[in-house]
């Protein structure tokens, strides 16, 4: 007779409950295999509870076996490199716009005493950034018809990019300081460099439903080893994003009166920290099975994100006046705002995966 304390039994029941919830949603195929063990596991002194599960699970397994035509686990584990490709031109434009357009932005101040007009920026050039994924997912077949196998897939994806220089341009910035002591600084044109660096990452728990076309391949190609599948998926996505924007002008010497060297300096960061949005993906995958258990998969997806995240913008813009001994800031403006934005645009993704059938 196994002696188990009340505390351990309580913990055991709690964990069993958690486990069953997890299994229901993520690895229900494992339940289907359990009757084989359960039948041989008539535990001493505790034969009531397993019997109930055993009956239920056996029915489930039989039902599954009938629908799939075979009995056993059909869970795969995939791991691979997952580059996502997205157009960065919109990010570049937004970042540059923060400097050259719009009221309330840092440099295009509406303060008449300190005013900058639109610098002669060059046209925006599009670009691409690559984000890598660390996927860990599993899937199972749960129904089969003459043409399709329906599959359920659940996975954890961590998507990360290294810092990307989205934008770096040299521009001429006409700037006016109309304060009484600085009337001679009206229309000083500063050579300037605007630089935008961005880094992204996100964590998502995605679930997908797939139509596996393996029966069609068997019917028309004579082999199921190579086949396609299409899927729809959704899940929560936790987004982190940081965009650093800086502007620094050259030092300009103004030889009028007591005025000396002037410079403009600005930096601000736009940050999203672990905000929750919802991700949707439409995917098409080609699968090549190697033997009974191994497979290689190439999957292309179109990802769309719904929901908003808080974008915190924090930074400053300052005009620096250098004297022989020190410097001071005739003008200093700060920005500290929070706005709701859609954190990511839609983007394509490509996944290379290796799968193993249990």
């Amino acid at each position, binding site marked *: 007779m*196994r002696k*188990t304390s009340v505390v*351990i039994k309580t*913990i*055991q029941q709690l*964990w*069993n409950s*958690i*486990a069953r919830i*997890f*299994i229901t949603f993520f*690895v229900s195929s*494992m339940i289907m295999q*359990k009757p084989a*063990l*359960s039948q*041989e*596991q*008539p535990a001493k002194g*505790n034969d009531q*509870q*397993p019997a109930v*599960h055993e009956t239920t699970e056996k029915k489930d397994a039989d039902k599954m076996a009938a629908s799939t035509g075979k009995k056993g686990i059909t869970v795969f*584990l995939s*791991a691979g490199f997952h580059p996502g490709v997205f157009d960065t031109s919109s990010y570049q434009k937004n970042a540059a716009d923060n400097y050259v357009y719009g009221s309330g932005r840092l440099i295009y101040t509406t303060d008449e005493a300190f005013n900058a007009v639109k610098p002669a920026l060059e046209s925006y050039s599009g670009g691409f950034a690559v984000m890598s994924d*660390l996927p*860990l997912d*599993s899937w199972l077949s749960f129904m089969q018809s003459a043409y399709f196998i329906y599959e359920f897939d659940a996975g*954890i994806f*961590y998507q*990360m*990019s290294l810092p990307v220089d989205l934008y770096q341009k040299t521009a001429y910035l006409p700037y006016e300081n109309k304060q009484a*002591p600085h009337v001679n600084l009206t229309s000083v044109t500063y050579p300037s460099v605007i630089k935008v660096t961005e*880094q*992204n*990452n996100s*964590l998502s728990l995605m679930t997908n439903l797939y139509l596996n076309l393996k029966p069609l391949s068997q019917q028309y190609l004579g082999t199921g080893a190579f086949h396609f599948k299409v899927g729809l998926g959704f899940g929560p996505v*936790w987004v*982190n*994003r*940081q965009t*650093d924007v800086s502007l620094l002008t050259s030092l300009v010497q103004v030889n009028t009166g007591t005025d000396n060297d002037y410079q403009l*300096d600005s*930096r*601000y*960061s736009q*940050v999203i*920290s*672990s905000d929750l949005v919802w991700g949707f993906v439409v995917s098409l995958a080609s699968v090549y099975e190697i033997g009974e258990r191994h497979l290689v998969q190439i999957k292309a997806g179109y990802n769309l994100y719904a929901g908003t995240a808080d974008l915190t913008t*924090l*930074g*400053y813009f300052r005009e620096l*006046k250098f004297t022989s001994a020190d*410097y*001071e*800031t005739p003008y*200093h403006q*700060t920005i*500290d705002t929070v706005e709701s934005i859609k954190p990511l645009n839609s983007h394509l993704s490509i996944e290379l995966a290796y799968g193993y059938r*249990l």
Partner: protein
Amino acid sequence: MVPAAHAQQDVENTVASTVPPAAVAADSWYLDVAIGTDILFWDADLKSAITQAENSFNGSEINVNHSDFKTSMYLVSAKKVKRAATPFMPGIHFRFGKAFGKHAIDLGLGVSGLLPTSSIEMQSSMLLEEYRICNPSNLTPCPLARLGYVEDSTAQKDYILTLTMNEVYTLIAPTVGYSYKTMQLLDGDLFARASVSFLAMSSKQRIDYLAYPQSTTTTTHALQGVLESTQTSDIGFKVAFSGLWNYYTLSDYQLWLELGITYGIVNMNRTVNGYGSIIYNDSIAASYSHSDNEIAWQSSDTFYLTGFFINAGVRL
């Protein structure tokens, strides 16, 4: 009786009918789901880097370089502004593995953080001192004294400081692990485990503060500001050694408990940004950015994840 399936798979256990069956059957796949926490010892360098914002209230000189408001000042909080000790990094772990007799190899993913926390929330008296040579008969070089932020004679005044610090972090750790079944213990198996993890970390700390004179009930004279430290997708690695006790239950699932030690490094490339404003009659008399002072815009710090960890989970 020993369950037949397990007895067949673990030949070593068949000789003793009173011995519980092996928690992990030979050549079997398993999935672990667990929650747990790391208990870390922060090294002094990282503490000083993270807490450089706190030093703004512990006597560091703050320069205001505005042309019409050029001065230097000290802020000294009566209570030391100190980030709450947060050695705990709770998280959830998934491991997918296969056992080969006494050996097991697993591939997993750990996720920590995600939820925002408040690590400082305080109200304290604070002394504001203008660090200028001030003469009550000529206060031109001392704008804080001239506008009544400090007393003319002492260049000091008592303030009430309200300060909060909120932070959020995400730590992702894909892991490869190896376990070796050493012995049976208390109706379970005891494993020795070693693992290596790749780390990707993001974090954000934000301090908001407001200070106004104790002698007034309004905010006609106030100091207000923000300081933010952020880092995104900084990478590192971690190694861990542990003992894992896998308790064999009477159901289809096993419970396990893991205790271990960990050592890891993340190179944090932080961006530090912030400003302060001197508010006079509800308008900003002057503002200063932390770039005017000794707080670096970019800061590279090494975060050592040295400490213990404990995980409890279920094996499917």
